[in-house]
């Protein structure tokens, strides 16, 4: 069961693009080992939340703490100070992300994709990194393709490699950003099955954005319904999916289920 210590904490988070406010004064926490799924209509700011945790977007206002450390900004002497890039990179080393479009490196083989960061960021020895990569590839059912190029793989296969690549960095938090949205329907199952195994076998905290409601129901400890940059309601998946209390959630679920 997830502990109650906050692993990831959003405090008064605001994000705007130009004059367009995407997230408005957002406060929530994710406990250590907790799996939280964000649902809601497109443009409700779900993906932006993941991108803020990965520091792919700059916070407009507020703070995000990861394992007690400031991620992008910190409060010092009453002032909001930017965390330097190097320190940001060190903090986000605990965060892994799997993208909608996989984003594998096309100039590297499957194996090279996976060992690049463990060798050059974590400082693992090559043999060590390769052994670990092999085990991970085995787990996602892709060991037989370790010398292939990403362009030789199907979307589902590429995504499974991308999952292995993220796990190779031993993340404490894993961000899944609509990981099946770009896949052909028959490849969605293989990717979700891999993620379900990982959810069952590890205690990595997960923040998930998905349109696969059954998957959300199966792996989540908590589901948060978003609309227009704010949390409409949150609760255990059974409660949200079977008996949503908010009209907005009911409408959304009726539309997608």
């Amino acid at each position, binding site marked *: 069961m997830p502990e109650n210590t906050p692993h990831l904490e959003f405090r008064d988070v605001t994000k705007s693009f130009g004059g367009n406010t995407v997230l408005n004064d957002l406060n929530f926490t994710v406990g250590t080992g907790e799996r939280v799924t964000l649902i809601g209509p497109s443009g409700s700011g779900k993906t932006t939340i993941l991108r803020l945790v*990965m520091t*792919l977007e700059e916070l407009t206002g507020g703070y995000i703490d990861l394992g007690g450390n400031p991620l992008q900004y910190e409060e010092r002497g009453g002032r909001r100070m930017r965390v330097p890039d190097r320190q940001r990179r060190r903090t986000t080393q605990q965060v892994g992300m799997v993208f909608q479009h996989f984003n594998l490196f096309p100039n590297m083989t499957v194996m090279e994709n996976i060992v690049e960061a463990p060798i050059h960021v974590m400082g693992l020895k090559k043999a060590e990194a390769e052994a670990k990569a092999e085990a991970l590839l085995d787990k996602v059912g892709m060991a037989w393709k370790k010398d292939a190029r990403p362009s030789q793989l199907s979307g589902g296969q590429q995504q499974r490699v991308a999952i292995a690549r993220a796990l190779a960095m031993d993340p404490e938090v894993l961000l899944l950003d609509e990981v099946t949205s770009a896949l052909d329907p028959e490849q969605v199952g293989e990717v979700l099955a891999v993620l379900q195994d990982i959810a069952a076998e590890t205690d990595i905290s997960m923040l998930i954005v998905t349109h696969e409601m059954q998957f959300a129901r199966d792996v989540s400890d908590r589901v948060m319904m978003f609309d227009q940059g704010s949390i409409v309601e949150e609760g255990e998946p059974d409660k949200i999916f079977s008996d949503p209390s908010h009209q907005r959630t009911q409408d959304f679920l009726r539309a997608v289920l």
Partner: protein
Amino acid sequence: MDGVIGFFADLGPNFQLLLDRSPQIIEGVRVTVLATVLGALLALLIAFVFGIAQLSKAAVVRWVARIFVEFFRGTSLVVQLFWLFFVLPQLPYPLGFRLDPLLVAVLALGLNYGAYAAEVVRGSINSVPKGQYEALSALSISPARGMVRVIIPQAWALMIPSLSNLWIQLLKGSAIVGSITLYDLFFQVEQVRDRTGTWFAYLFALLAYFLIAWVIVVIMNALEVRAKHSIGRGPALREAWRSLFRPPGGKTAEGGLA
């Protein structure tokens, strides 16, 4: 005799003359190829340094690179050549020194075409999909390492067609180095012109430059096939050698746009 009739009437003797002068002509080809190859290597180095510098986070670095590129792109190659060759030696100590004509040619060609190519490098790096940068960031790979390991290998495949064009332009641009006492192919053709007539001499020059340019095209096509294959687009070089002889900008072996 000159003109088109003279061209045909004197064809035999003119070929004989060309044969007699072949040591000088070959020397001219050697100088042209040397200036073209060394100039291109310098241009490539400059292109990468100043292309990447323009993407730096530090505003000072970006501005210095920008000014450099605009200056060497915006001033004439002939004027640059003459500056390096005629003005530089007259500058007061310690700035004034006389350089070897070949070195002057390589410097001027490298600086001028390097400035153009820097824009190609910058554009190609910007064209690498944003997701690649995001994946690097998500894996905490430093920007410098990501650039070398992931971004440049992909940008390289994108920039080769433009670099190929520039290299051919550099070859043709090198035909003015005779004016700084470097006896290149065009200079040697000029030496036979008054005896063979303009038709014969300049037709020969056209052909000779075309042949050298064609070698450049084949080399660059090979590099392009290889670079594309390495990022998973297109066949390996040994399977696609036929496509090397296509003109630049044509279709690739598998039918996609080059």
